[in-house]
């Protein structure tokens, strides 16, 4: 695919990097030369310096040939104008824009081909809020992602001593939960993937990925780690866009929220915008403040400022002072690798979360959702199977007869709005949503090919 990315910020660069590796033709545009310097050679992409929404710049970036334009500059207005220009001049088929301002986000009707032609709006704040909310709702989860509009969930967790299934063969889960259908999509042991079989014995510290219908997730999780009720007491640090939105969402869901903000003016502002949340002006690295605010009674501590180091350190401190679970927002990917699963419970990576949702629109085939897992090494996708036994390589076939690339498993199906946890002899039907777990991203291309219809499909 020929893709133009506008804006060489965190999301622009990480997306360019991932997409270039997947055999796409990428042009990255930024108006600051130093932002794109050196990227050309390092990422094997084309770079252009110029104003992202200017017709001449878009022309130079290959506008007439581009299949997709991804506008992720730091200005909503530039992103919208760039989509408008691309549509008017080049009829670019797919236009994705990052829009942050709630002012625009609450008026979706302005985004259409005859007003502002944006096909897909990406709001990182909303994505991150949703991500953290899931982690709070499912204690013990490292990652929770939605498929089939939330009907199906995939959960990554760490198996612990005390989980009933730990130390036993996977197949015995049926004895414990005879009426619940779930599928273990992947297991990572000491960071290495294991293909789960019925006789695989779950060990403590295994990282397990499970797919099930949403209502079954808690009980299935309880097989792998000690049962916990979702905690009610949440402390957030940093009242930026994400902190504010998350606090608002949490208080609407009846959590007890304390929001710590360093800036006096900002603290006063957000206090006015929130109802039940207690806004505290202060520093999350202030041990006395933390103790005074009952840090040891917090079920979740989550640091969301725009300073990685401060987030990591305050989350470590909170953990030491007795917070049950500590999470930190971490932008730099090197830190994410370093921190997660060692000192903190969960590292929240805005770029990984955002990139996953962008990949949905780049994948060939009728892809509905893509989620990056394990810091981008693995992927879970939802795709629709089309065609019939002649025009498709999957429709009309039993799962065991489909030549899936190694390490790729069908986790679940959605058929006529109903969740099916498939067995080896389940036959894929046309229009099934198929949820796949791909252990190694290098196989994504093969998975895409497998699900593509042949020429006779009309």
């Amino acid at each position: 695919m020929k893709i133009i990315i506008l804006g060489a910020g965190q999301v622009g660069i990480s997306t360019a990097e991932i997409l270039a590796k997947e055999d796409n033709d990428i042009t990255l545009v930024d108006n600051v030369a130093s932002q794109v310097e050196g990227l050309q050679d390092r990422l094997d992409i084309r770079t252009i310096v110029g104003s992202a929404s200017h017709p001449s710049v878009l022309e130079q970036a290959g506008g007439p040939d581009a299949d997709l334009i991804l506008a992720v500059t730091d200005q909503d207005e530039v992103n919208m104008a760039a989509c408008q220009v691309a549509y008017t001049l080049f009829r670019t088929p797919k236009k994705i824009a990052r829009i942050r301002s709630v002012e625009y986000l609450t008026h979706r009707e302005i985004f259409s081909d005859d007003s502002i032609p944006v096909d897909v709006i990406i709001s990182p704040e909303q994505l991150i809020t949703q991500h953290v909310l899931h982690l709070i709702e499912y204690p013990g989860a490292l990652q929770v992602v939605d498929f089939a509009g939330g009907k199906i969930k995939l959960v990554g967790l760490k198996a612990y001593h005390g989980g009933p299934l730990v130390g036993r063969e996977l197949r015995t889960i049926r004895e414990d939960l005879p009426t619940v259908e779930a599928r273990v999509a992947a297991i990572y042991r000491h960071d290495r993937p294991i293909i789960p079989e019925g006789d695989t014995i779950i060990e403590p510290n295994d990282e397990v990925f499970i797919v099930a219908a949403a209502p079954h997730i808690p009980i299935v999780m309880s097989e792998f780690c000690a049962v916990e009720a979702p905690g009610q007491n949440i402390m957030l640090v940093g009242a930026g866009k994400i902190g504010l939105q998350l606090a608002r969402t949490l208080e609407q869901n009846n959590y007890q929220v304390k929001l710590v903000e360093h800036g006096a003016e900002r603290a006063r502002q957000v206090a006015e915008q929130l109802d039940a949340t207690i806004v505290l002006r202060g520093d999350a690295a202030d041990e006395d403040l933390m103790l005074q605010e009952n840090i040891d009674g917090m079920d979740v501590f989550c640091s969301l400022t725009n300073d990685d180091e401060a987030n990591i350190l305050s989350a470590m401190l909170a953990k030491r002072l007795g917070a049950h679970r500590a999470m930190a927002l971490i932008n730099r990917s090197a830190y994410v690798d370093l921190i997660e699963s060692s000192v903190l419970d969960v590292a929240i990576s805005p770029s990984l979360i955002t990139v996953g949702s962008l990949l949905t629109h780049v994948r060939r085939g009728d892809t509905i959702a893509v989620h990056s897992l394990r810091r981008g090494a693995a992927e879970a996708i939802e795709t629709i199977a089309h065609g019939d036994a002649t025009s498709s390589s999957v429709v009309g076939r039993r799962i065991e007869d489909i030549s899936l690339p190694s390490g790729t498993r069908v986790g679940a199906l959605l058929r006529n709005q109903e969740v099916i946890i498939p067995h080896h002899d389940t036959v894929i039907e046309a229009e099934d949503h198929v949820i796949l777990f791909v252990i190694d991203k290098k196989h994504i291309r093969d998975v895409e090919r497998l699900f593509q219809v042949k020429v006779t499909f009309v």
Partner: protein
Amino acid sequence: MNSTAHPRLLTGLLSTSRIRLNVSAPSKKRMLEELARLLSHNRPDLHRDTVFQVLNERERLGSTGIGDGIALPHGRLNGLTEPLAAVIRLRQALDFDSVDDRPIQLIVGLLVPANATEQHLNILASLAETFNNTEQREAIFRARDAQTLFALLT
């Protein structure tokens, strides 16, 4: 050329005005745009942008590159009552995610009504079969002008 082998597949679907040789299209998008332009040429009932959209959407579900340098982009179009074809031969071969990974040079585009009949749908399978014949294929690749190509396909 073995004239008995050609099945007059596109009789009634094609006209010389919808055949263009020596087309320069540096990308998949521009090739599909050119094809949409040709298909909607002299057809006030067909909107170029809509035709492009239909072809592009179908391409997303799976490449129509059938190998040996040939692609058969197609789609269903609302409001169309009879199928319609157009042919493009490119000056320079174009990467098209074909089954054999080879670039394409000959494109036969086809639009069928939204409620296409079995007969309409079979056109594609027959086209693919025709191009499977090396002699047929080579004659079409060699054709010097639109008239010759028209005669070969209708």
